[in-house]
Each structure stands twice: as structure tokens, then as C-alpha cells.
């Protein structure tokens, strides 16, 4: 496919470090859009703040680079104004689950039709390696110099519990699977989230002696377990593993459709009584 068609080439080179998972995720997003044949004019991409969120500057869609943690709120308003548009949100672990955590759970609860691609790199990369809500216990961040002592969020689990229609997880290594997961997420009517485990060799990797970006990606490959296989494994066997694939795919009422149905019903009742 022609990636150039979807890129704002004048804004390259991008800011991402070599070995970062962001570029891999970006290409998967573009392949999914291309595969679905959605016109660029009909796509909006909304992001927050952080490495992941710089994605919006590089893609030739209708793009909003918002405030820290808030992309889902802007995306919600935009989707309400333009339900016909395909709304994508690109965010990160810090953006979506720390400062934007409340918006994440409520957008999922509402089940509003949009697709979130969340790059989880276990750290605040752009600001230089501070611990995030997904920094593993004991791992080092510049603000956790003696090791992180807070429990981590299971992001996908959180969003499933909050009520999203579709939740999937993938790693930067499984690029082909990622295309498929994102495509399904876009096709899904409702709130969908794809959590992409993305290595950050510069901040997280360096602080925790994880080796090069290439090594970190290969380590993800080794840690990954497909959901079908994971379902047959015990909790102990799944420790330190990354379960990948479609975690939840359910047909539940979408928010805007529910709004429209409620209003139509009210108007019918009025017309009936008049």
C-alpha cells in the first residue's frame, strides 16, 4: 500500500526514538484504514500529550492534538457533532490512565463509537522516564528511583470492566495481528480499545537495563500468549506474560444510537398524544 498518501511528509522526520513502538503502531493504523477503504476526509484522529500523541501531526486526516489526558473528551464532542466520521484516538498509558483515567472509564461506560489505540510503554517517555500507572512493581522510573511501589493498571481489564464493546491487546512485534485488531475495532459499533505494548528503549528500557529496542521487541514476542492459549493456562503460568488478541467483543447498545432512539421515542409519544 501507499503509506505516503496518508502521511504529512513535510513533518518528517518524526520525533520517535529508534526502537520505539509508536511507528509500528502508526503503520498498522494506516494499513487498517487503507484496508477498510475509508476516505481520509472522513477520518478524525484525536490525541492527548506524550510520545504516542504526536502521531496526529504525522497523518493526513482531520487531526486534533489536545490537552494532556483529554483526547477522549474532544473526540466525544466531535463524534456527537459528526457521527458519520470515523473517530480514532491515539493515546498512551500516562495520558489515558493517569491524568485521563476518568475520561477513559466513562467513554468506555458510555460505549460511544470510537476506536482508541493506546500505546502502553510503561513509562512517561516524552518527559524523560517518570513512572506511570503501568510501570511494573519494582521497576525504575526517574520518579521511582528505588523501584515502583504502586500496583499497576491492567488497562484492557479496566476498559472491559467499564463496559467497552471491544477490547484487544497486541505487542509491537505482532504487527500483522495489530492491523487486524485495529480494523476490527474500527468496524465495531461502540467503544473499542486496542492496547499496544510498545517498547521504550530510551527511557524505560535504559532505566531498567532492558537492552536495545530490537531486544525489547523480541522479549515481547517471547512473553506474548494468544488469548485462545491463555484461556487454558493458570494464573501462575500467565505471570509475566502478555495476553494478545481480542479480549472482548460484544454487541451492546452504542451511545449515540441510544440517544437517537430515546429522542425518537419521546417525539413519537408527543406526536401520538397531540
Amino acid at each position: 500500500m501507499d503509506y505516503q498518501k496518508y502521511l504529512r511528509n513535510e513533518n518528517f522526520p518524526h520525533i520517535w526514538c529508534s526502537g520505539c513502538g509508536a511507528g509500528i503502531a502508526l503503520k498498522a493504523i494506516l494499513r487498517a484504514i487503507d484496508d477498510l477503504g475509508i476516505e481520509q476526509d472522513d477520518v478524525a484522529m484525536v490525541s492527548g500529550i506524550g510520545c504516542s500523541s504526536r502521531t496526529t501531526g504525522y497523518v493526513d486526516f482531520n487531526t486534533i492534538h489536545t490537552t494532556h489526558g483529554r483526547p477522549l473528551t474532544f473526540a466525544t464532542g466531535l463524534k456527537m457533532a459528526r457521527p458519520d466520521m470515523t473517530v480514532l484516538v491515539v493515546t498512551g498509558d500516562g495520558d489515558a490512565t493517569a491524568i485521563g483515567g476518568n475520561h477513559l472509564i466513562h467513554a468506555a461506560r458510555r460505549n460511544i463509537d470510537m476506536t482508541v489505540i493506546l500505546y502502553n510503554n510503561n513509562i512517561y517517555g516524552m518527559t524523560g522516564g517518570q513512572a506511570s500507572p503501568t510501570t511494573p512493581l519494582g521497576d525504575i522510573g526517574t520518579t521511582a528511583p528505588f523501584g515502583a511501589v504502586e500496583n499497576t493498571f491492567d488497562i484492557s481489564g479496566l476498559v472491559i470492566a467499564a463496559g467497552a464493546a471491544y477490547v484487544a491487546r497486541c505487542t509491537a512485534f505482532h504487527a500483522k495481528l495489530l492491523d487486524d485488531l485495529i480494523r476490527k475495532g474500527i468496524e465495531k459499533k461502540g467503544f473499542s480499545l486496542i492496547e499496544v505494548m510498545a517498547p521504550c528503549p530510551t527511557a524505560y528500557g535504559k532505566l531498567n537495563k532492558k537492552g536495545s529496542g530490537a531486544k525489547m521487541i523480541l522479549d515481547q514476542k517471547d512473553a506474548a500468549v494468544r488469548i485462545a492459549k491463555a484461556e487454558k493456562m493458570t494464573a501462575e503460568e500467565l505471570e509475566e506474560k502478555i495476553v494478545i488478541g481480542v479480549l472482548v467483543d460484544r454487541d451492546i447498545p452504542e451511545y449515540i444510537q441510544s440517544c437517537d432512539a430515546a429522542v425518537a421515542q419521546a417525539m413519537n409519544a408527543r406526536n401520538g398524544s397531540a
Partner: protein
Amino acid sequence: MNPRTSMMQGNIAVAEGAIAAGCRFFAGYPITPSTEIAEHLARSLPLLGGRFMQMEDEIAAMGAVIGASLGGMKSMTATSGPGFSLKQENIGYASITETPVVIVNVMRGGPSTGIPTLPSQGDVMQARWGTHGDHPIIVLTPAGVREAFDMTVQAFNFSERFRVPVILLLDEIIGHVHEKVTLPDPEDLVVIDRKKPTVPPEEYLPFEIDETMVPAMANFGEGYRYHVTGLVHDQTGFPTMDEVKIEMMLNRLHGKLDKYADEIIQVEETGTEDAEIGIICYGSSARSARQAMRELRDEGIPVGMLRIKTMWPFPTDRIRAFADRVSHLVVPELNLGQIAHEVEHASCDRAEVVRVNRITGDPIHPEEIVQKIKECR
């Protein structure tokens, strides 16, 4: 009786004004004393083809109205002090991205949770400087129910025309007072919509610098794909670190309101021609001031009143001209002198500025103003 005549509450007049101005998206969060605005729009907007959303918090509501506005819907949110504080982050975003939105703040006693059900005018400075960094903003402040309607229409017109967030500041008294009003015929209203690009998409500069100072705004999904960011950007909309481009962009951002200041800045002068003592007032305090002025005039004391309608940009020149003609400027307000300080700056010692303040949730009574003015003589 005219079917457009009714007893109406100030908050409802704001909601009706928004509808009349073409607002079709509202996102909010319940907060006293502004909630009637959300409740009224929850009932009305969906039946008019619009959309109403109760968001998870005030921050989300502010983000949602910006998103909807970029999608082409005129959008509004409404709140009170604590919620207004939470919205500040994204008000700055609307300001730098030049996204038209209207934010209503029905002021209650502060600081913090303060006095939720009682009036205050304690947010006049927050309305100007609440969000970080130098930024353009327009703030309008009505003093009655009909004016709440008119100013809401005007708030939308200003926000669309100048691509700037507009804050409508009511105090709890104006939000909750019921008055008999006759609303204008919708056909008689002037409703302004954002300027659309006339060039093809490949020539479109979303933040173009031209003599109008206000760039044409394409809505998302109309074929003009562009980038919106809270980072300082150049005419293309993409972030820049180039000092020259930063300066050009920020000069236009601030300069656009200077250019149209005469249109934006509005005051109401009553009896200022022959006044020896002046009153500078706004919102509910202006109603007390009007009564005080009447009583003093009846006693033969020539008092004049300048009522601020556009709070920001501040009507410095009009107040300075008034200060030239009077010995004192009395400033009644439901705070500890936030606007009196601006009046002092405007007056520049031409007239002595005298404060009448109250922060206990009680309105300022006309007698207090009468008393203060008599002390000036």
C-alpha cells in the same frame, strides 16, 4: 399578550438565547446555581436536532464542546466557580486554537466550594486570567433576564466572528431572578456564523494571517484536512519553534481583539453627562446602583452610572473619560474590589475610587451605595 412574553428565569433566558443563536451542542456537569441551563437544554436541544451531554466532569464538558465546535456545531457549556476552575485548562486550548465556544459561569460565593446557593461576583478576574499564559478572551456580563438572552446570542456571535472563547458571567441573582420578558422574534435576531474558507483545500491555511486577523475556519469532515494543536503553531497549524513565526502568530492572536475593540467593548451610560459623582457597576450590583442613583437624583444629587456590559477587554477608555468628569467613582461589587482595582488603573487619579464590597452572599443594598456616595460629598 405577545406569545413571546413570559415570566422567565435568567438561566432559562441563557438557554433560550443559546438556541436562538444556533447552539446545537451542550455538554455540562451539574452545579449550583447554573444547573437550570443544562436541564433546559437537555429537554430542548435533542428535539431541535441538537445534542445534549452530561459529562463525567467539568474538564470533559469543556473538551467536548471544543470537539463539537471543530465538528461544526455551535457549542456551549455552563458552570459555576468550582467547575469554572476545572475548565480553565481547555479554555486556554480554545483560545490558542481559536475554536468558537461559549462558557457560562453563574457565579456563587467562593473561594473553593464556598457558598453554593448565594450570589457573588468573585470570578471576574478568573474569567480574565484563569487559564495560564497570555491569551485573548471576551467576557460579557448581563444585569437582567432579557439581557441574559441577548448577551448569550451576542456571545455566540462574538465567538464565531472572532474565533475566541466567550465567557458569559452571571451572578446567582441574575441566573435565578424571574422577570417578565418579551423575547425578540427569531427573524429579527442577528446571528453570525464562522467564516468559511473560499479557497480549495490544497490552498487552505487554517491559521492564515491576513488583514481581517481572523482566519477562515473549516469544519472537520468538509474536505479541509488540517491539524489543531494547543502548541504554538504557524499558519499551517503545525507546531513551530521559529521565533519569527511564534511572534507573528501570537501578535495576530492578541491583535484580533484590539482590532475589533470598538465593536466588542460595550457599556451602558446613564446620567453621566451632568454627573458629579459616578458609579461603575455590573451584574446584579448594577440593579442596586440604579436604585441608589434614582434616590440620589430625587434628592438633587447628580449621580451618573456606567454599567459594564463587556467586562473583558476592559472598557478602560470609557471609564477614563467618565473619571475626567466626576470627583469620585463608586464601585459596588460582590467581591473584595476586583474591578475597583481595574477602575483605579483606568481612572489614573482623575477621580477617587471608592469601594462598596460584600462577600457574605447578601446582595449590596441600594442604601449602602447611597450612604457611600453621600460620604463622598
